């Protein structure tokens, strides 16, 4: 089970109302390499992965939900004071017609989240390589997002998230090595 903690993992500040950036940031909310996809991907893999890496998948999967909440907070803060006209001018007219100021799980281009973004092969190496790729793709997306804003407060939160992708990728690479070693040991009688 999970217990909610009433705090963000890292402070989220923005220095201005910027619905245009919110439109781009939603990529990491409901996009293919976003935080929702990451959490669902890792937590779902736990049931068929060797015991040695279940703890890691559980803890990284859980941290992804904390990141999802940070992205949601960024989008909320960037849009909450925007008028419908400002949202329309920022390219969020279609979003506003359906969702008003509500968040929704879709990517920057407006495509709704789909579970086909993630896979589950039940092969530990195949699954962990997917996880490493997902972290690297998310890291790249965070870099593009940082490059598109001049808001130092927003950049600070995004840089934190970018660095977490680097750490997760490193831990998943170690998990691959642990499993390779484990497989070699099993062959010695």
């Amino acid at each position, binding site marked *: 089970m999970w*217990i*909610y*903690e*009433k*705090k*963000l*993992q*890292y*402070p*989220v500040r923005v220095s201005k109302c910027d619905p245009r950036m919110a439109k781009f940031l939603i990529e990491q909310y409901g996009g293919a390499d976003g935080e929702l996809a990451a959490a669902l991907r890792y937590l779902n893999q736990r049931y068929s992965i060797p015991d040695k*890496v279940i*703890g*890691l998948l559980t*803890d*990284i999967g859980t*941290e992804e939900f904390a990141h999802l*909440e940070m992205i*949601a*907070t960024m989008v*909320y*803060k960037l849009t*909450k004071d925007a008028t419908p006209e400002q949202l329309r001018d920022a390219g969020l007219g279609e979003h506003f017609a359906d969702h008003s100021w509500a968040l929704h799980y879709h990517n920057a281009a407006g495509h709704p989240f789909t579970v086909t973004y993630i896979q589950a092969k039940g092969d530990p190496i195949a699954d962990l390589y997917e996880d490493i790729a997902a972290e690297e793709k998310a890291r790249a997306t965070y870099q593009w997002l940082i490059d598109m804003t001049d808001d130092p407060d927003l950049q600070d939160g995004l840089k934190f998230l970018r660095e977490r992708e680097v*750490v*997760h990728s490193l*831990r998943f690479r*170690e*998990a691959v090595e*642990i499993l390779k070693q484990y497989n070699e040991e099993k062959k010695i009688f």
Partner: protein
Amino acid sequence: MTKLVPKEYEQLMQELQALDFVLVELTLYLDTHPDDEQALAEFGQFARRRAAVAHQFESRFGPLLEFGRGPAPARWTWCEGPWPWQV
């Protein structure tokens, strides 16, 4: 809705976030290096410091966790804000 919070809320929250950063890092590290005794000792140290700061925060600003995971409340304040995205 954005809510104004006292300076102490921000200070204690930031302290908590900093300690939790160390604990999350050590948790993931220990998941792949469970035999590292130095990391385990650091985890214990930071967990104790974290508990003290969390207690300080909760006594001023209400529970961080509910479902009975903290001290028994005299009054139910869990459902009151500010929520994390409102500060």
